[in-house]
């Protein structure tokens, strides 16, 4: 894993193990550092009408409710999202962190359905645009909580992340090997989808060929 990236495997494993009250306390501390480092972001959020956004990482047992507008923002872990919410955002933890840090393009993720946004779009769009203005480095902010020991903790976290990644890759390889012989024939719908994708690709290639032909024709005419 490259320096500067987020150790998402380590964090998602740690978050899955933490009970909600401890998680809530840890998030509170994280928000306090975030507020110190990004005062403009917090001013923008405070100026927004009060709202609640449900955050749903699909690979974690926890759900979260983000509240801001007027009072200081809060991010509260919860088991379910059945309370009144303005909007909900759903996706993998890694994707949600990438969006928070502005490393990923939200529209691309929305087109590919890697994130799902439901409810009041204006609220989510305002939040996205507020985050876009600041470059939040969540890992650095989390490390700041460890004070003078942050360098040591950082190195340990990155080492653990590398080990977790290697373990995951091995598990995936074993899983593939075990199931390769038992893989069923693809369904008719999947085959149709594949054929349609191939047809689209062929169409695109044909269009490019046509463009190249026109280009050559043009070059012949001008020479």
């Amino acid at each position, binding site marked *: 894993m490259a320096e500067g990236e987020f150790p998402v495997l380590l964090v998602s494993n740690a978050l899955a193990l933490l009970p909600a009250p401890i998680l809530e306390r840890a998030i509170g501390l994280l928000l306090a550092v975030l507020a110190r480092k990004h005062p403009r972001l917090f001013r*923008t959020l405070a100026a927004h009408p009060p709202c609640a956004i449900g955050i749903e990482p699909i690979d974690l047992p926890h759900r979260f409710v983000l509240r801001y507008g007027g009072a200081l923002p809060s991010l509260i872990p919860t088991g379910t999202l059945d309370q009144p919410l303005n909007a909900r955002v759903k996706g993998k933890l890694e994707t949600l962190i990438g969006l928070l840090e*502005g*490393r*990923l*393009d*939200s*529209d*691309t993720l*929305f*087109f*590919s*359905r890697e994130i*799902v*946004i*439901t*409810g*009041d*779009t*204006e609220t989510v*769009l*305002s*939040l*996205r*645009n*507020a985050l*876009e*203005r*600041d*470059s939040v480095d969540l890992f650095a902010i989390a490390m700041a909580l460890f004070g003078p020991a942050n360098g040591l903790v950082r190195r340990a976290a990155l080492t653990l992340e590398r080990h977790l990644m290697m373990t995951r890759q091995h598990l995936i390889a074993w899983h593939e090997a075990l199931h390769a012989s038992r893989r069923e024939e693809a369904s008719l719908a999947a085959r149709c*989808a594949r054929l349609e994708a191939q047809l*689209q690709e062929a169409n*695109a290639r*044909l*269009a*490019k060929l*046509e*463009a*190249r032909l*026109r*280009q050559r024709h*043009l*070059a012949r005419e*001008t020479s």
Partner: protein
Amino acid sequence: MKTYLELVCPAGTPAALRAAVDAGADAVYCGFQDCTNARNYPGLNFNREELQSGIAYAHARGCRVFVAVNTFARAGDFGPWQRAIDDAAALGADAVIVADLGVLDYAASTYPQLRLHLSVQAAAASALAIRFYRETFGISRVILPRVLAVEEIAALIGETNIEAEVFAFGSLGTMVEGRCYLSSYMTGRSPSMDGVCAPAEHVSYQEEGNCLVSRLGEVMINRFGPDEPAAYPTPCKGRYLVQGRPLYLFEEPMGLNVIPLLAELKAAGVTALKIEGRQRSRAYVSKVVGTFRAILDSIAQGKPLPAEAAELAVMAEGGRETFGAYVRGWR
């Protein structure tokens, strides 16, 4: 290195402006935080201080900044448009992008040294219209509507001998810009008057079973199946029931990408390429601008296209790309 085609890039936030400049934009276009520009979405655009520092950042790196003041002024309320032109001129913008006749007249008569680019919102698609704008207001460049084929662009440039900027990548409007009132019909707000097509406060998405349903106000715009890419809820790209069958009535959601047409556009006399997407993230800006920069530099040096040219497809709306109206024979 000599510029093959000028690269004009979007910036919805100061962070996106810096990303565009750092990725190799020749020019960046942006707007103020109000109804005077056609991307008036919540939390987007620049206040006066942000634009001032943005211009300083760009100029220090040899990049120009164009300010879009390209909506149509409201009757009896010219103030916001006048202030936008005044401030763009005072802050050192390299050009203003304008569509409205009154705003053009104000800018041309008050700031004769300020470069004027005719916005796509003006929908100037004939030599007569372009000549009128040049002779009356002294426009230096026209941003051509996305309804023209490459041959028509070549003819227009030949007849007018004007600098032409064309859309190269991004979301594609199928309607004639500045003339579309579909969004206004459904929500009371339109890109031409308020700077917003499908304004966010009217947009909602709901999951219904495995499907994602998008609505604009009370109107259902689309229902995406479990494996279908999603798209913006813009009325011109909606899937409507036609005789009981759900069909894309105007156009399917797709993104414009002209990379295979760059040589043709250059041969047609085009001066500049515009990347669409002021409403998109700085990650999009970095990726698209960086890729186009690499492609244009490769072409200028006679090298083969870099591999990352193929990586832009995933960023297209609906997950699919098109040449739009540039190549009509195929359609």
